[in-house]
C-alpha cells in the first residue's frame, strides 16, 4: 500500500489501482455520512478531485493518485458510508482505476514514509 500527501492510499494489483483514504484522514474527518464515488468508465487524471467524502461538518475532495479509467466503484459506500471510518484502508475503498501511466506511482510514499510524513503535519 502506498500513500499520497493528500492522504489517499493506493494498492496495486497488475494495472489496477484500488484507492481509498488513509486511516489518518478518516479519523480526521470524523463520522463519514456520505461518499460520492466516481462513475465506472470515467477517466480520471492524477491530482484531480475524483470523489467526495462528507462528514457531518464538511465535504472534502478526494484526489486521484493515478491517472486512468475507473473500472469499479465501491457501491457499498452509498448505503454504508461509515465503512470509511470502520475500515478506511480495507472495505472502505472508493474506486478501482485502470492505470494509464505506471510512473505516477513513483512519487508515492510507503507506509513507513507516510507515518514519518504524518509526524511533520
Amino acid at each position, binding site marked *: 500500500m502506498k500513500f499520497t500527501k493528500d492522504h489517499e492510499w493506493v494498492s496495486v494489483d497488475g494495472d489496477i489501482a484500488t484507492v481509498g483514504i488513509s486511516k489518518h484522514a478518516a479519523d480526521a474527518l*470524523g*463520522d463519514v*455520512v*456520505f461518499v*460520492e464515488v466516481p462513475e465506472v468508465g470515467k477517466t480520471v487524471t492524477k491530482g484531480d478531485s475524483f470523489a*467526495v467524502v*462528507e*462528514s*457531518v*461538518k*464538511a*465535504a472534502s475532495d478526494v484526489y486521484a493518485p493515478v491517472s486512468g479509467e475507473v473500472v469499479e466503484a465501491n457501491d457499498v459506500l452509498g448505503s454504508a458510508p461509515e465503512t470509511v471510518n470502520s475500515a478506511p484502508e480495507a472495505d472502505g475503498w472508493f474506486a478501482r482505476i485502470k492505470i494509464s501511466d505506471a510512473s505516477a506511482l513513483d512519487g508515492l510514499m510507503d507506509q513507513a514514509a507516510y507515518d514519518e510524513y504524518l509526524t511533520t503535519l
Partner: protein
Amino acid sequence: MTDETLKTTPLNAAHRALGARMVGFGGYDMPVQYEGVLAEHRWTREHAGLFDVSHMGQCKITGADAISQFERFVPGDYQILKSGKQKYSLLLNTDGGIIDDLMAGKPDHDGLFVVVNAGNKDEDFAFWAANLEGDATLTVLDDRALIAIQGPEAAEVMLKHEPVLAEFGFMDCARLMLFGVDCFVSRSGYTGEDGYEISVPAADAERIWNTILEDARVKPIGLGARDSLRLEAGLPLHGHDIDPTTSPVEGALTFALSKSRKEAANFNGAERILKELAEGPSRVRVGLSVKEGAPAREGAEVADLDGNLIGKVTSGGPSPTLGRNIAMGYVPPAFAELGTELKVLVRGKPAAAEVVAMPFVASRYYRKPKA
C-alpha cells in the same frame, strides 16, 4: 498545540484532558468533538450534553436608562419583560439588518444580562459603548465562563445541585449562588432541548464543569454537534443564516418584533421592517428537506423545478436524528410555502428538495404548567 493567535476559554485545559479535537472558532481554540459528532449529537438528544460556550460574549447593561437605551437598537419590548425572564432579540443596524442575535434578560434587579455571539462580540460591545446614552453603562463580563447543559436529562442532573432550578420554565433566568459561587442561570439553550445556560466566574469554571460531568448522564459535547443540533432545531446561525443584510422579516424572526415596538416604530430599521411586514420581503428563510444525494451545505444554490436559480442554502447538513439531509436557505416568498418542491444544486448536481416546517426536530423546551 495551541495556535498562539487563538484565544482560549477557562475550560481549555479541561477539553484537552478529555481528549477533545480542538479547532479555531470565532477566534477561540475550541473543542469540535470529543468522541465523535454523531455520538455526541445523539447523546444530547437522549441524555444530557455539556457545552463550553465561553467564547460567546457576556455583558451587563445597567443604570436608570439601561433598558430604554438597550431598546433603541432591538425590536423587543424589554420594558414590560418581567424580572426573572429573558428574551431572544436582534441588534439591528439602521437598515434593519441584523448586526447580531442575542439573549437578554433580567436575572436580578440590576439592568440586563446579555449574551451575544463570539464572532460579533467585540463589534457589539463597541457599538453599545459608542451608542448608549444617559445613565446606561456597559460592563463586559470577560472574567466569566459560560456552560450549557442541554438534553432531556439536563434538568434532573441540575436538580441535584440546586433544587430551585426545577421551578424554572423556558426562558426564566436568575442570579443565584450555584456550586458556591455567584452565577447567572437561564433555562434556555440553542439545541432545541430543555436545559440551562450557566454563567460562572472564570476561576471556578473548570471545577464546575468537572462537577457536572461526574453525573453519568452527562457527556461533554463539541461545537460539531452543537451545530447539527442547532440546525435540527431550526435556529439561525449568525454570519450564515442571518447577517447585517438580513432583516428579521427575511430571517423568519418576526416573533422577535414586539407588538408595542412595531406600533411605536422606534427601533433601527423600523421603516424597512414594517414595509416588509406589510408588503412581504423579497426573500425569506425556509427549511428544506433534501430528499436525495449529498448534504446541501452553505452556498449550495436553490432552483425551482424549471431550473431557474432562486436562492441559496445558508446552512445544511445531515440530520442525525432524522437520518436525512436538511438545510435552511433563502427563497422568494412565492416558493416558501410548505410542501413546495424545489431543487438544490450540490456540486452542480440537482437534487430534489421540499420546503418543510422548522424546527426539523420538535423542540422540547420546558414550559411550566399554567397555575
